C-alpha cells in the first residue's frame, strides 16, 4: 500500500479551502447585477388562496417584480414531480396531487410557496414580501395520519381519497399468516419513528442567471445531484431545454438526503432570472429550512415477530403508516416502500415476511429521504422486535441474534433482496469484545450503588445501498436508472482529471477518488483532480445519496480507467514497437514483457497526444475515456453497534457512556474518511433517538421551527465513538466496496433505545427519549423497586 493509495488514511485534498474560508458555497456566489428573492409563504396549513394583491408591494423601493402562481402558469412552467411510481395492492397507481412551484389556488402546509418578491436588495425584498396581501379561506388542517384517513377528513388533494397515496404491500401474506398460526411465541410492538428535520448546516440556496445572447440559463444550487436537477427542471418542469440549462452545485454544506430533491425555490429563481432580466439569488433562513426542506422518517408501525419452540424467527408482519406530507417530494414515494420493506429481514433468517404500507397525505411539509431513508425505519422495527423477543423468551439477546443470523451466502430473503456476502457473527463478536460486554453486570451494579440506572443495547443492522441496479429499480417503479458515469481525461503531461457524476457535499470524494486513480495509474495524488457538480463539465450523472458514490461512482471510474489503460498500452506498444498484448502496466510504468524496455505514464500520455509514433489510421490520438457503471446488485453493508447508557432517574437525563461500532463496509479506500462517516451517522442516529423531533400542533403549525426548539445534538451531548471494522468484500463491484454513508444513522437508534429500555425495564420508550420521558419511566421503575 502506498502512502496515498487504496487503504491509506490520506488527509483530504479539499480541506485547504475549507479551513481557510475559501470554500465556494452557493450563497458565496455573487453575479453582476444580482437581485434577491424572498418568498411569500402560507401562514396556514390548509387554505384556499382567494386573492393576491401585490399593488403596495410592487410600488415599494427596490422591488423588481412580484410573481405569483398565475405568472408561472402563464409561462407554462410545470409543477414539481415525484419520480418513483408506486402501485397499490389493488394494482392502482399512486394518487399524486399536483405540486406547483407557486401555489395555484390552494396551499397545503405552513411555508407553502405562494408568491415571490424580487428586489434590488434582500432587505427591500423582505420588506415588500410582508406587504403582499393574500386573502385566504382557511380550511381545516389534518396533521395526524390516523385522522387523515378517516372518512370525512378534510381532503388535501382531490385525487387522493381518504388522503391516501397508496396502500402498498410486499411479501407473501398467506405464508406469513401460516407462520404466525404455528408460532409458539409472538412478540408485538407499536412503534413511532419520529419525524426529523435534516438540518444540513448550510441552508438551501439558489442563484438563477439568464444570458439573453445565447438564450441559456445557469442555476447555482445546493444540490446532491445537479444532473437530476437539470433533467427534472428541463424535461418535466420545462424552464429550458437541457442544452440551454447549466446546473452547478458548487461546494455544498451537507445534504443528508435533503438536497437530492428538486424544490420550488430553485425552479422559481432560474425562471425569474429571465423574467426580470437579472440574476436572482435566494438563500433560506433556518426557519425556512425547517418549514420547507423535506423532512424525514415519520412512521407509525405495528409489528409482530413469530418464533417457534426453539426461539427461531419464523415470520414477521408489519403494518406501517407513512406520512408523506402535503405533496409528494422527488423520491418520497419510494422511501417507505422499496427502501424500507425489503430490509425487514435484517440480518436474520425469517422465512415469511409480509409488509403493508399506507402512504398518507397530511398538511405538513413533504417527507422524503433523510440519511438512511427507509432503512433506519426498517432496522428500528427489526432490532426492537429482536431485542424484545429475546427478553420475552428470557434469552440472552446476543445468543438470540446468533441463533437467527443468516450464515450462508448468497441468501435470498422473502422480500426481494439477495444478500451477497457477510459475516454477521464476526462483527458481533468483535463488537462485544470492544464493548467489554462480559463485564456489564459489574458496571450496572456500580451505577446502581450510585443511584443511577445503567443499560446496554445492541443493534445488528443491515442496509441495502450502492443504489442501485437500473433494471431492478426500473421494475420497482423508478423513473430513472441509477448507474453512474465517469470520464478520465489524461492530459499530455500525465496529470489526470476525473469527471464524475457523483457529488461530494462532505464525503471527501476529491481525496478518495484521487487515491483510487493514483493507486491505479501509479501517479502522485497531487496530479489528480476530481471534477464534479457542473453539468457543463460532467456530461451526465446521478449524484450522491444512498451510500452509492464508492460502490457505483468509483466503479464507473474503474471501468473508465480500464479503457484508459488499454488505450495507453496501445500507445506504448507503438512507441516501443511491441504488441499492446505484450505491454505490462505496473506502478505507473509500461513495460514490454520480458524486456527492460519501459515508458512511464507521463511519457505515454505525451506520446498519445503528439501521435508521432502512430498514425490516426492505426490509433486515434488522445487519451480520454468514459464509462457508465450500472451495478448488478445492491450492496449490503452490515454491522453491530453497542450502546451503553447511564440514566439519572432524578432528572431523566441519559448519559451515553460508551458507543461501540463494528461495521463491514467491504473494501475501504480511506479508513479515516470512512470512520468519519460512521461518527456522523451515529450522531444523527443518537439525535433521532434522544432529542430530535419535528412537532406540529393540531392546526399544522410547526412548533419546532428553529434551533431554539428543535434539539440538535451538540458536542457535550455525545460520546467519543469506539469504531472497528470487519471485512467481507462485496462481490458485485470491482473494488469490493459496500458503502458507509448511512450505516451510523441506521444502526444507532435501536442500539440506544435497546439500552434505555434495558436500563428502565420497560419496552415502552418512545423516540426521542427526552429527559422528561425517561424521568417519568424511571419513576415507575424506582417506585416498583421501592415496593419490592
Amino acid at each position, binding site marked *: 500500500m502506498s502512502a496515498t493509495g487504496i487503504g491509506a488514511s490520506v488527509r483530504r485534498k479539499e480541506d485547504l479551502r475549507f479551513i481557510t474560508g475559501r470554500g465556494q458555497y452557493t450563497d458565496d456566489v455573487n453575479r453582476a447585477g444580482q437581485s434577491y428573492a424572498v418568498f411569500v409563504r402560507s401562514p396556514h396549513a390548509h387554505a384556499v388562496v382567494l386573492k393576491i394583491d401585490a399593488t403596495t408591494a410592487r410600488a415599494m423601493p427596490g422591488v423588481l417584480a412580484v410573481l405569483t402562481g398565475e405568472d408561472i402558469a402563464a409561462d407554462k412552467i410545470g409543477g414539481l414531480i415525484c419520480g418513483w411510481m408506486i402501485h397499490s395492492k389493488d394494482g392502482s397507481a399512486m394518487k399524486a396531487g399536483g405540486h406547483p412551484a407557486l401555489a395555484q389556488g390552494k396551499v397545503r402546509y405552513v411555508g407553502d410557496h405562494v408568491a415571490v418578491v424580487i428586489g434590488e436588495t434582500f*432587505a427591500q425584498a423582505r420588506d415588500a414580501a410582508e406587504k403582499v396581501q393574500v386573502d385566504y379561506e382557511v380550511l381545516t388542517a389534518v396533521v395526524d395520519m390516523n385522522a387523515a384517513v378517516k372518512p370525512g377528513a378534510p381532503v388535501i388533494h382531490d385525487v387522493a381519497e381518504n388522503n391516501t397515496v397508496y396502500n402498498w404491500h410486499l411479501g407473501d401474506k398467506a405464508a406469513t399468516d401460516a407462520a404466525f398460526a404455528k408460532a409458539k411465541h409472538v412478540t408485538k410492538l407499536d412503534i413511532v419513528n419520529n419525524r426529523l428535520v435534516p438540518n444540513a448546516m448550510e441552508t438551501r440556496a439558489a442563484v438563477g442567471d439568464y444570458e439573453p445572447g445565447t438564450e441559456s440559463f445557469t442555476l447555482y444550487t445546493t444540490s446532491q445531484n445537479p444532473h437530476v436537477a437539470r433533467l427534472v427542471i428541463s424535461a418535466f418542469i420545462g424552464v429550458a431545454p437541457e442544452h440551454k440549462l447549466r446546473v452547478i452545485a458548487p461546494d455544498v454544506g451537507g445534504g443528508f438526503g435533503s438536497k437530492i430533491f428538486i424544490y420550488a425555490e430553485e425552479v422559481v429563481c432560474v425562471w425569474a432570472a429571465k423574467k426580470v432580466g437579472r440574476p436572482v439569488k435566494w438563500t433560506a433562513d433556518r*426557519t425556512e429550512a425547517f418549514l420547507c426542506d423535506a423532512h424525514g422518517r415519520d412512521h407509525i408501525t405495528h409489528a409482530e415477530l413469530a418464533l417457534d419452540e426453539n426461539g427461531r424467527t419464523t415470520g414477521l408482519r408489519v403494518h406501517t403508516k407513512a406520512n408523506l406530507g402535503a405533496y409528494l417530494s422527488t423520491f418520497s414515494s419510494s422511501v417507505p416502500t422499496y427502501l424500507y420493506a425489503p430490509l425487514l429481514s435484517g440480518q436474520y433468517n425469517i422465512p415469511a415476511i409480509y409488509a403493508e404500507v399506507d402512504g398518507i397525505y397530511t398538511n405538513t411539509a413533504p417527507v422524503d429521504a433523510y440519511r438512511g431513508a427507509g432503512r433506519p425505519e426498517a432496522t428500528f422495527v427489526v432490532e426492537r422486535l429482536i431485542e424484545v423477543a429475546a427478553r420475552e423468551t428470557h434469552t440472552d439477546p446476543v445468543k438470540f441474534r446468533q441463533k437467527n443470523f443468516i450464515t450462508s451466502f448468497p441468501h435470498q430473503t422473502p422480500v426481494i433482496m439477495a444478500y451477497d456476502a457477510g459475516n454477521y457473527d464476526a462483527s458481533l463478536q468483535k463488537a462485544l469484545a470492544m464493548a467489554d460486554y462480559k463485564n456489564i453486570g459489574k458496571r450496572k451494579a456500580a451505577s446502581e450503588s450510585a443511584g443511577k440506572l445503567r443499560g446496554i443495547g445492541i443493534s445488528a443492522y443491515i442496509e441495502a445501498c450502492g443504489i442501485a441496479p437500473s433494471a431492478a429499480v426500473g421494475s420497482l417503479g423508478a423513473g430513472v436508472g441509477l448507474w453512474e458515469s465517469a470520464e478520465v481525461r489524461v492530459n499530455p503531461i500525465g496529470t489526470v482529471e476525473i469527471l464524475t457524476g457523483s457529488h461530494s457535499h462532505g464525503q471527501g470524494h476529491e481525496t478518495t477518488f484521487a487515491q483510487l486513480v493514483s493507486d491505479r495509474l501509479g501517479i502522485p495524488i497531487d496530479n489528480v483532480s476530481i471534477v464534479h457538480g457542473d453539468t457543463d463539465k460532467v456530461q451526465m450523472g446521478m449524484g450522491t445519496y444512498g451510500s452509492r458514490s464508492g460502490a457505483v461512482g468509483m466503479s464507473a471510474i474503474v471501468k473508465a480507467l480500464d479503457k484508459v489503460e488499454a488505450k495507453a498500452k496501445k500507445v506504448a506498444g507503438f512507441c516501443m514497437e511491441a504488441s499492446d498484448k505484450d505491454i505490462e502496466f505496473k506502478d505507473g510504468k509500461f513495460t514490454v514483457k520480458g524486456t527492460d524496455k519501459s515508458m512511464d505514464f507521463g511519457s505515454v500520455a505525451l506520446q498519445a497526444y503528439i501521435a508521432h509514433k502512430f498514425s490516426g489510421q492505426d490509433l486515434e490520438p488522445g487519451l480520454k475515456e468514459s464509462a457508465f457503471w450500472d451495478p448488478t446488485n445492491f450492496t449490503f453493508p452490515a454491522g453491530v453497534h453497542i450502546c451503553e447508557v447511564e440514566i439519572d432517574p432524578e*432528572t431523566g437525563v441519559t448519559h451515553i457512556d460508551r458507543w461501540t461500532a463494528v461495521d463491514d463496509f467491504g473494501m475501504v479506500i480511506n479508513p479515516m474518511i470512512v470512520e468519519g462517516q460512521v461518527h456522523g451517522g451515529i450522531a444523527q442516529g443518537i439525535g433521532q433517538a434522544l432529542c430530535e423531533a419535528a412537532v406540529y400542533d393540531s392546526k399544522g403549525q410547526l412548533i419546532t421551527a428553529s434551533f431554539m426548539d*428543535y434539539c440538535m445534538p451538540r458536542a457535550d451531548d455525545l460520546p467519543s465513538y469506539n469504531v472497528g471494522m470487519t471485512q467481507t468484500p462485496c462481490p458485485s463491484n470491482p473494488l469490493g466496496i459496500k458503502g458507509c454513508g448511512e450505516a451510523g444513522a441506521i444502526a444507532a437508534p435501536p442500539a440506544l433505545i435497546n439500552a434505555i429500555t434495558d436500563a428502565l425495564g420497560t419496552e415502552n420508550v418512545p423516540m426521542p427519549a427526552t429527559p*422528561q420521558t425517561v*424521568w417519568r419511566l424511571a419513576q415507575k421503575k424506582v417506585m416498583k423497586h421501592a415496593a419490592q
Partner: protein
Amino acid sequence: MYAFNYNRAETARKAVNLAGKLEDAKFLAGGQTLLPTMKQRLASPGGLIDLSAAADLKGIEMKGRNLVIGAMTRHVDVATSELVKEKIPALADLAGMIGDPAVRNRGTIGGSVANDDPAADYPAACLALNATIITNKRKIPADEFFTGLFETALEDGELIVKISFPLPNKAAYEKFRNPASRYAIVGVFVAKKGKDVRVAVTGAGANGVFRASNFEAALTAKFHVKALEGISAKAEGLNSDIHADAAYRAHLIGVMARRAVAKANAK
C-alpha cells in the same frame, strides 16, 4: 430586521438624553436577545441607542458590603472576575452558565435583567441575592423589579446603570437546560444571608422568575438538603411546553433546589 436609526452613546448620561429625544428608541446592550428578536421582525424599534461604548456602565467593584456590577459588564467578565469569584462565587458560576462562550462575550448583566426573559439566569440571582437594581433615576429592589414575562418596573427611557448585590453567606445556582435552546427549563438560585434564606426559580414560572416560599421556609429552619425532604413545588402556574410539562418542571425545581443547597454547603 426593520429599518431603524442607529445611535451610539459614550456615557450613560448621553444614552438617557438620547432616549428622551428619540421616538420609540431602545437601548442596545449586548444585543444577544434584542437582535435575534429584531431579525425575526418580532421587535421593531424606531431607533437603537448602542451602549457598548459607554465605559461608565462597565465594571465590577465592592461598595461597602455590596458587590456592584455595571450594567454593561459582560457575562464573561462576571464569570472570570476574581472579585466576583471571591465575594459571590455563585454569581460567577451563574454567569459562566449563560448561553455559550461567544454569547457570554457579548451579553451583559444589564441587558439580561432589563429584558427579563422568563428563562434567563440573572433574574434568579437578583431575586435570591436581594439585589438592588440602580437606574439613572432610582434604586429598585429586585422583589419589585421583575413584574412579569419580559416585564420590569423600568419606565420608558429609564436605564439600568448598575446592580448591587449584598454578599450572602452561602449561595449556589443549579440549572436544568432546555436540550434545544440551552436556556433554563428550571434554574434555582439559593442564597443564605444571616437568617434570611431566599430561593428564586427561573425558567419554570408562567409569569417569570419567582421565589419559592415553602422552600425558603424549610431552608430558613435549617439550611441543609435534608430540610427539603418532602418539600415540593406545585405544578400550578408553571410552564408547559414540548420539552417539559408543568409537573416535570415542578419536580425539577425540587431537584435543582436540593442540588443547589448541597453545592452551597460544599463551598
